[in-house]
Each structure stands twice: as structure tokens, then as C-alpha cells.
């Protein structure tokens, strides 16, 4: 897998500190670092940090001591880390410093399809754009070398189709970089006050000019045979790999001059000149924003500017084929048949505690407003219990904003219930909670604690007290943080206990509306059913659907458990015993009590 190739590359380069916060498509990078460190007996400090900003700062400081360091995240994680990121370009680094920011054109699992290469350009640091997992691993080494040579952070920008692509990759023994930590104090640099910043900025610009002229970083050239003269295809990343496959499929391999840009920023100066003077027709194929195209700044280019290349979405082989057909004036391929059907939508797992909590919330407050957050529990939108999903940690702040907007109208304000997962709470929910408390918001915050970071593959949260390498850490408890944030209403409940949860929600609503009301926090716990390390689910009870079922479909539509199926023959609901997790929560989801605990049923 591309992420494993990157992780392996980090270990092979003798990196000393690697940090990350999980997020698709980047999550497996740090996990691979752990695996390959163990396999090669390499010593490294490896951490799942609480968020990307912290991850960036920890790794950056390690680099300031002269050691090699790496930080990995998804592209929107870099938004969170943008503050230390932007300044690190000015101040530079000592030991090689690699930033991996994984983009998600499409997007498949992200709030935006933003292009991290643009972010690199904004920060003024070089970015490498791999076209395959193999190349991603090679570029890790190049990034460390460039970073040390020019004392600058270097970004590696893989996309989903690199991160989650699998390919055979050559393995090398890890370099044993035995450097002792040595931080050299230099206040003009590490504490740079505005007075010193312009000089640092001047130094940065000079570095970029030198990097733009570095002969190692020129694009790879795939010459054509002259049949299509003065015409060039310029591409980068996996979109370039797909371009080669499409040309092959169209029997045009080796007919047109092709260039693979490996460093989209700073685009090599000589390349800009040779493209602009050597060709009359140029198309640029890159994901997702026109980074190369803008630096070429040539009006003869057909690409984003001329709308030949779509400005949005993933550049899949069929999209690239359409672009090349128009660019090369070829006869279009026959249009594909009817557009494909939408696939099944994702849903919370059978027995997931989040479903129970959401069911209780939506049933208790049919007219409530429900700001949500990022994680598996975003799927609470299927249950009508998530009204907004914005970015990590936004749910609590949005809840406060909703409250203030309604409360100032004077009329009775709606019940506002924010939901947030345990890992997201640590990531960026804490400042939002402190803020809501101090600003007198009257909202309910439900922290859905499933004892893991489930969506991205079960990374540990700070509460578990386990490090990325599986060693003993020091657990930090959510309840302690909530109390320390000034919350006076705190209740903890087993998420499976819908009745108890409903009672607490009503009590919380009364508290919010009372004379001394404020933020009410409920920690609804239920270990993730997919994570062995999160512990076994509490309740174990088989259920069946009795003869009383009228086929009203309430359980199917409102509860949406994958184990409740429609029994066509009997025209009523049924339980798929193979899929059922035996949590027994659905008993409360039937309006006429036709879902019953099956005493004879197999409880295992």
C-alpha cells in the first residue's frame, strides 16, 4: 500500500521522531512506521498526537535538534496545522523534516478536495508529487535530503489513489543515523520577532530560487516520435500515471511528448522556459488545482483556464481520456451506457452504541437542532440526529452559535444537542467546550465515547493510555477535562441503555433552561463493536420479532440497524441473526413492542 511504502521510507531514512493524527487517506502511514520499526529493530519516538497542529510542532522541534523527523496527516489536517506550518517555512529546519499531506480528489472521505500543493506554494516550501507507491517511497528519501540541504520543510503530497494503491516496492535496510539531540539556541531564528522576519523571508525566497534550479528536480521526459509536433502533455501525480495508461489504451504511447513534473512547486525554472518556448499546444493534467498551470503562466495552455480539464472532481482515466480526445482532436469514444446506480449508503454497524444514543436524542427532542462532528457518528445523519457536519470539533461551537442566535430573539430557544466522538473531543472539542461554558451557552453536549478512533482504523485515544507503539502511556480522562472546563452538569451513561439516556437528556434540557443553566455534558459510553481492544459490548441478548409486528417499517426507517431486515414473505420485519450483535437496543425502537428479547435465543 502507498501508505506502507511511505511509512517504510520514513523508517529506512533513519527518522527519529514520527507523529500523526489519523485521517483517511493518511492513517496507515504512522501504523506502518510502527510495524517497520519493530521489524527492523529501529528506535523511534512514534506518536498519535491529539491533533495535527500538535503533531506538527512535536516533529518540528525534534528536527530543530538536528534529528530527522516526519509528520503525516490528511489534507484538512494541514488546515489545523497551518499555523506552525506557515512559520516553519520562514524559520527553516535542521534535521530533515518531512511533512506528508495526503489529498483526496473526489473527494472520497473528506470535507473538501483542496490541493495541498497550493498550500505548499502559499507557505513557500517545496512539494513532491508521487505518481505511484514506489515513487512515493523514493520521494521520502529525496524529501529528507532536500530538507537537510536547504534547511527547509519538504512536503510529500500523495493522493488517495497513491495512499491506497498497492504495488511491489523494493525494501532497503534502514539507515542508522546516529545523531545526538543538539538544540543550538538562536533567538533571532527560533524566536524571530517581526524585526528579524523580513530577513528570514528573504532567505526563504533565495532558497526557493536555488531549489528551482536544482538539476535533480527536473521533470521526467517521455519523448514522442514527432507524429504530433510541437504538442506537449504535462502531468503530475497519479493523474500522470493514468494519462500514460490512457495513451496506451488509445494506441498513442510514444507519439506525443510527455513530461512528468515531480516537484510542482517551485516548478523548475528551466522547465518553464523550455515548455513555453518549445511547444504551441500544451495540456496540463494535475490534481486538484492548477498549481503547475499557473506557474507556467502561458495563455496557450489548455487546461483549467480553458475549461478543457474539469476544475472539480477526480481525474479518473475516463475523464483524462475525454480531455485527450479533445486536445488531440480525435474522434470521441462511444458514450457510456446509462449512468450507474448509486451504491448502498454506509450505515452504523449492527450493535453500534452510537445508534442507541442517536435514537434516544432524536426521539426525546423531535424539534431539536443537532450539530454533529467528524467520525463514524457522522452517520447519525441517517437517523435524523445529525444536522450539521463541518470540520473537526465544530459541533460544540456551532451548538453555542445556534443557541446565541436563537436566544437573542427572546422566544423559547430550541434544544440544541451537539454530538462529538471521544477522539474528536481531544482533537479540538476541548477549546470549544471551554468557550461555550464561559460564554453562557445553554446547550447539551453528548460525548460519544467508544474508546477508540473507529472511523480511521482504531487508533488509541489519550484516554486509553496506550501509545502508537503499544507501550504504556498516561491516560487522560474525558470526565476530568469536562469538569475542569467548568461544566457543572455531567452525567455518564451506558449508551445501550436507551431508557436511562432518555431520562438524562430530559434532565439535561431542564438544567439548560433553569435559572442557573449552562452547558450540560453527557458521556455516552459503548465500546466500538469492531475494536477488540475497546472491550466487549456490555449487553448480550438475542432478539426476535413477534407475531405482533404490523410491518409499519418504523424500526427499518428510524433505527436503520443492518441486522433488521424486511421479510418479504411475511410482510414484516425480521432479524438477520448472522448480522445481529445481540445488543437488544432495538427493543425500544418498536412502537408496539413487537421486538422482544428471545429467552431461548443463542446469547453468544
Amino acid at each position, binding site marked *: 500500500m502507498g501508505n506502507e511504502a511511505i511509512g517504510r521510507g520514513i523508517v529506512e531514512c533513519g527518522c527519529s521522531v514520527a507523529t500523526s493524527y489519523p485521517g483517511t487517506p493518511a492513517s496507515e502511514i504512522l501504523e506502518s512506521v510502527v510495524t517497520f520499526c519493530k521489524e527492523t529493530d529501529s528506535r523511534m519516538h512514534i506518536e498519535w498526537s491529539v491533533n495535527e497542529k500538535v503533531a506538527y510542532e512535536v516533529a518540528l522541534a525534534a528536527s530543530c535538534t538536528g534529528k530527522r523527523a516526519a509528520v503525516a496527516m490528511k489534507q484538512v489536517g494541514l488546515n489545523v496545522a497551518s499555523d506552525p506550518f506557515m512559520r516553519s517555512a520562514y524559520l527553516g529546519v535542521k534535521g530533515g523534516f518531512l511533512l506528508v499531506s495526503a489529498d483526496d480528489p473526489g473527494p472520497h472521505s473528506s470535507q473538501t478536495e483542496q490541493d495541498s500543493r497550493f498550500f505548499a506554494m502559499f507557505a513557500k516550501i517545496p512539494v513532491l508529487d508521487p505518481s505511484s507507491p514506489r515513487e512515493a517511497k523514493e520521494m521520502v528519501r529525496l524529501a529528507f535530503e532536500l530538507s537537510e540541504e536547504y534547511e527547509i520543510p519538504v512536503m510529500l503530497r500523495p493522493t488517495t489513489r497513491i495512499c491506497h494503491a498497492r504495488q511491489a516496492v523494493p525494501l532497503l535496510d534502514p539507515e542508522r543515523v546516529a545523531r545526538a539531540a543538539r538544540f543550538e539556541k538562536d533567538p533571532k531564528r527560533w524566536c524571530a520577532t517581526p524585526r528579524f522576519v523580513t530577513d528570514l523571508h528573504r532567505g526563504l525566497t533565495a532558497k526557493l530560487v536555488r531549489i528551482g534550479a536544482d538539476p535533480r528536480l527536473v521533470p521526467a521526459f517521455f519523448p514522442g516520435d514527432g507524429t504530433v509536433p510541437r504538442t506537449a502533455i504535462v502531468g503530475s501525480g497519479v493523474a500522470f500515471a*493514468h494519462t500514460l495508461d490512457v495513451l496506451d489504451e488509445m494506441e498513442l504511447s510514444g507519439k506525443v511528448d510527455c513530461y512528468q513534473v515531480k516537484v510542482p512547486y517551485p516548478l523548475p525554472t528551466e522547465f518553464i522556459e523550455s515548455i513555453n518556448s518549445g511547444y504551441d499546444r500544451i495540456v496540463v493534467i494535475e490534481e486538484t488545482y492548477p498549481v503547475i498551470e499557473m506557474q507556467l503562466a502561458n495563455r496557450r495552455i489548455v487546461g483549467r483556464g480553458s475549461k478543457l480539464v474539469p476544475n472539480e472532481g477526480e481525474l479518473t482515466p475516463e475523464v483524462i481520456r475525454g480531455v485527450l480526445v479533445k486536445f488531440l482532436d480525435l474522434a470521441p469514444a462511444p458514450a457510456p451506457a446509462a449512468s450507474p446506480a448509486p451504491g448502498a449508503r454506509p450505515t452504523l454497524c449492527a450493535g453500534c452504541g452510537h445508534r442507541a444514543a442517536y435514537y434516544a436524542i432524536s426521539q426525546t427532542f423531535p424539534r431539536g437542532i443537532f450539530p454533529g462532528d467528524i467520525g463514524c457518528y457522522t452517520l447519525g445523519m441517517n437517523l435524523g440526529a445529525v444536522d450539521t457536519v463541518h470540520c473537526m470539533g465544530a459541533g460544540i461551537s456551532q451548538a453555542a452559535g445556534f443557541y446565541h442566535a436563537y436566544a437573542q430573539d427572546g422566544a423559547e430557544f430550541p434544544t440544541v444537542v451537539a454530538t462529538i466522538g471521544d477522539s474528536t473531543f481531544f482533537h479540538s472539542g476541548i477549546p470549544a467546550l471551554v468557550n461555550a461554558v464561559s460564554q453562557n451557552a445553554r446547550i447539551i453536549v453528548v460525548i460519544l465515547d467508544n474508546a477508540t478512533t473507529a472511523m*480511521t482504523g482504531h487508533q488509541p485515544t489519550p484516554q486509553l493510555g496506550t501509545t502508537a507503539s503499544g507501550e504504556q502511556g498516561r491516560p487522560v480522562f474525558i470526565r476530568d477535562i469536562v469538569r475542569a472546563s467548568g461544566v457543572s452538569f455531567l452525567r455518564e451513561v451506558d449508551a445501550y441503555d436507551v431508557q436511562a439516556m432518555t431520562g438524562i437528556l430530559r434532565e439535561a434540557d431542564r438544567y439548560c433552561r433553569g435559572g442557573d443553566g449552562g452547558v450540560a455534558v453527557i458521556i455516552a459510553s459503548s465500546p466500538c463493536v469492531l475494536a477488540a481492544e475497546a472491550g466487549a459490548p456490555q449487553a448480550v441478548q438475542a432478539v426476535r420479532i413477534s407475531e405482533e409486528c404490523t410491518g409499519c417499517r418504523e424500526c427499518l426507517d428510524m433505527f436503520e440497524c443492518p441486522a433488521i431486515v424486511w421479510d418479504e414473505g411475511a410482510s414484516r420485519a425480521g432479524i438477520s441473526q*448472522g448480522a445481529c450483535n445481540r445488543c437488544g437496543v432495538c427493543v425500544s425502537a418498536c412502537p408496539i413492542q413487537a421486538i422482544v428479547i428471545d429467552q431461548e435465543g443463542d446469547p453468544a
Partner: protein
Amino acid sequence: MRQRIIISGRGGQGVLTLTRVLAEAAMAAGHEVITTETHGMAQRGGAVLSTIKVGLFHGPLIAPGEAEVGLFLHADNLPVHGHYLRSAAAAIVNAVNLAGHDFVDAERLAALAGESRAANLALLGFAAGKGVLFVGADLFEQTIRKTTPAKYLESNLAAFRAGIEAAR
């Protein structure tokens, strides 16, 4: 040798495992191979797709109308991902009954083999038995032996072999 294969299913059905087995088998047979798969939220029961390109290719994605083989772990995904197949493609579907396609009740075969989660391997066995894949069943069996934890090995192999039998 060049072959483009799609594997279509629902999150949780073992699409990723099957992708890996096919890729490892291709490497064991000395072929270049590049694959891609679905991660993230879609894994929670949503429709997921993997692509496998055996032979000299650069990128991992397959364009509509290009795949020579389709393995469908869920018959409902035929209208979702069927357009990736070329007209002469072999479509192998996990279904109790399905007119017009090569189908096998992979879930039943896996349950009989003692591991209901091995329906993916029963479907692979069926496809290998039909002879539509880039290598024969023997190499897949070796790959399964190499990649499966000991605890599941016997039942997984039994499911795979039941698939081969069903293809006869």
C-alpha cells in the same frame, strides 16, 4: 499477461482481503500488479470497489468498459459497478440465483466450510475454478496459506475449495 479485475461488494464483506490475495498471487506469479481500494466511511456497509491491474500499467484505476473480470460479492452492486466491465468480460456474482450471470451462493459455501466470513474466498475459488483469472487455483491456494492466520486457515481453505468444486 495483462488483466484488469474489479472486486465489488459492501463494506465488511472482505473486499480488501480479496484484493490482497489477488495482488499477492500476481506477484508470486512474477507479474507487475497495481491495485486500489476503498477506505474510510464507505467501509461501514456502503458499496465499495477495488481494482486490480495485472501486467504493465502505471495507474491503479480502471475506466468504464475496460475490466476483463468482475467479482461481485453483492448482486445489488451489478448496476452500481457493472459498467466497468467490457462487453466480453467474465462477471462472477455471489448470489443464490441470478439469471444471465455466472453465480454461486458463496455465503452458503462459506457457512458450510465453517467460516461464514470467508464468502469472499469461496467466490474467488469459483472464479479460479471457472478459469477466468490470470493464474490457476493452485497459486491462489498457496497465497491463502501464506496470508491467512493459522486460526482461520482450515476453514478459509475449505471455503476456497468449495468454490472451485462448485465451478465444475
